[in-house]
């Protein structure tokens, strides 16, 4: 036994050192946080997460805080989580996520929320089954899956369409009609021709194609850049609108087909009704111009049902305007929110979603979160970030928590 002492020593060192470190020494002692309600309904925070950093160490740690608790990025970094995170972009909707959890066999191979329509009654998914070629007149075959959630019945059919099989940008159900919006990107061009492909769900046939925006013809150094803004509302009756943005730009340097720099010459925002196929321009005030976007003044927009909302915000205030696409009612700058009215010093970030505004408010100590209803302007929720274990306040400082972004998942 005596002659084996070195082998024994190396073996004990190998096992002991690592075991002791991971059982005792690897605890990072970083404080955990959660969002605590000061007033209002805590359920309002189900879709909200705040991101930023926690200092107090030589290197700041990236942290995400929700009502359920906090999550430090480095603490959870591993190969498995990195691989699992590759599907994060598939879905931005909580309802779609929970449906995938419940009905894995129905959604198998159908996981991209832009190609899905979902509400309490239906799950409909559109995907290309066959591409016939590059020529737009040849079209392709689209596979449609219709799942009746209440009856637990699924049917699948294929539809031949004479539209170039571009990227599916949105799917909406209006009565017996299924509207599939196609973003037809052209080779080397920075924008797309946009089509609304209408399929009759009873006859399971392609009915018609409406054009939302034309091709982006290039004339000299001028070209158009088209894009769409989707409706957040999932209810069938009020999801008939989407927005189409058409901008004219001029190339300053470089050329299309390689890298280039351009400046915006003009911009128009249109409300497109899937129901009537009509496109109407909305007031220039709501145009998503970058003219008022700077380091100090930022803006966010949202389309929820018939209502288009715009918030312009800085550290001092957030000013909300709303335009009703059906009634044309214009509530310009009707709501002004300041950090002082919530007992805060600065607005850190603002986001619109679910016809509400979510504000991240910075104070001299722990950050606050406010949720305000955009329809009747009532405060639905006010909450503050707090330690999960209040005793850590003796050794840590809440000032080390620097949250800068608020993110809200679609319901």
């Amino acid at each position, binding site marked *: 036994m005596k002659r084996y002492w070195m082998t024994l020593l190396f073996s004990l*060192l*190998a096992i002991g050192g*690592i075991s002791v470190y991971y059982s005792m020494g690897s605890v990072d002692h970083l404080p955990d946080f959660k969002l605590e309600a000061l007033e209002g309904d805590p359920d309002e925070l189900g879709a909200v997460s705040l991101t930023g950093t926690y*200092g107090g160490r030589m*290197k700041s740690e990236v942290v995400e805080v929700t009502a359920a608790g906090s999550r430090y990025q480095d603490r959870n970094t591993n190969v498995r989580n990195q691989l*699992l995170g590759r599907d994060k972009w598939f879905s931005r909707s909580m309802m779609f996520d929970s449906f995938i959890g419940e009905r894995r066999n129905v959604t198998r191979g159908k996981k991209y929320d832009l190609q899905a329509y979902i509400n309490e009654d239906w799950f409909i998914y559109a995907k290309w089954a066959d591409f016939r070629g590059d020529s737009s007149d040849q079209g392709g075959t689209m596979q449609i899956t219709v799942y009746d959630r209440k009856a637990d019945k699924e049917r699948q059919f294929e539809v031949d369409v004479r539209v170039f099989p571009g990227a599916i940008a949105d799917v909406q159900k209006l009565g017996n009609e299924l509207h599939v919006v196609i973003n037809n990107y052209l080779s080397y061009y920075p924008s797309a021709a946009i089509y609304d492909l209408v399929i009759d769900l009873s006859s399971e046939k392609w009915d018609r194609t409406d054009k939302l925006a034309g091709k982006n013809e290039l004339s000299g150094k001028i070209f158009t850049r088209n894009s769409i803004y989707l409706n957040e509302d999932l209810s069938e009756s009020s999801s008939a609108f989407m927005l189409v943005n058409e901008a004219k730009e001029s190339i300053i340097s470089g050329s299309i087909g390689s890298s280039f720099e351009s400046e915006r010459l003009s911009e128009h925002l249109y409300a497109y009704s899937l129901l009537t196929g009509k496109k109407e321009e909305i007031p220039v005030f709501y145009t998503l111009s970058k003219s008022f976007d700077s380091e100090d003044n930022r803006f966010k927009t949202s389309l929820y049902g018939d209502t288009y909302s715009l918030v312009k915000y800085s550290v001092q205030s957030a000013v909300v305007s709303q335009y009703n696409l059906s009634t044309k009612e214009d509530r310009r700058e009707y709501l002004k929110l300041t950090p002082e009215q919530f007992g805060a010093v600065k607005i850190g970030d603002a986001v619109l979603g679910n016809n509400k505004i979510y504000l991240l408010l910075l104070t001299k100590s722990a950050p606050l979160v406010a949720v305000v209803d955009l329809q009747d302007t009532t405060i639905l929720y006010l909450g503050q970030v707090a330690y999960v274990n209040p005793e850590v306040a003796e050794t840590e400082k809440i000032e*080390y928590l620097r949250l800068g972004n608020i993110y809200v998942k679609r319901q």
Partner: protein
Amino acid sequence: MNRYLKLVHMEVHRFRYLMLFLMGIILIFQVGAIISVLSDELSLKWENPAYSSVRQPFVPEGMLSFTWVISQTNFYFIIPIFISIAVIGLYIFFIWYRDWLGKSTFIYRLLMLPGARCQIYLAKLTAILIFVFGLVSYQLLLLPVEKLLFQMMVPAEWRVDSYWPEVISANLALDMLLPRNVEQFFTIYGAGIMAVLIIFTAILLERSYRRIGILYGLLYVAVHVMAVMFLPDLLGIGNPDSFLYTDEIVGLVFGICLVLLMLSVLFGFRLLAKKITV
């Protein structure tokens, strides 16, 4: 079992001087760098107590922490760690070839020993694991010693305390060797063990079939690398139209890695038992 342990001891014994040499250069590089960095900083501080080269947003102005010292000595920590990785990387090949090289081919004596030949394979694998984890643990043991040195050199009124994960993440090489997440530790060292087993099998292929064996060995390594690297993409990870869900793909990839690992071991055993003759 007794014979296996004796074989492990034999392999460790053969590597002992190299292991002590690696431990020595780790100690000299790291302790030397810490003393040098602290001496420079402290000599300036003694001259002018208001002086501080430490620019940290959250640590009180002018205070020194062990984490700061480790971040300032990054290069001198990385050099001996990379030398150790390179030496063990080369020894993965040498642990087999040294038995065939030299005046008396030691492998013939090993292969003629009574008992299963797979014990030779397992002993070599165990020895490599002892070297790797022994050096990682030695580094872990060295850190408190280095912290003690820091505390001895820096007066108490000029220093603030640090947590171990913070110290480790301040150094690129330590952060790579000792990930904060224990699952990541098992994943990267599991992948390392898999790589060692694949190389062992490739070496045995070469030893079994000689010239053409080199090609077999290279092909064997290439197929495994391709399988592991491209399997997630082949199964459709990151594609919303793929038949499998991401968690199913991840489970399959980990399962297939485990199967490949076991197949490498069994194939290695078979080559050693049936193909390599005395």
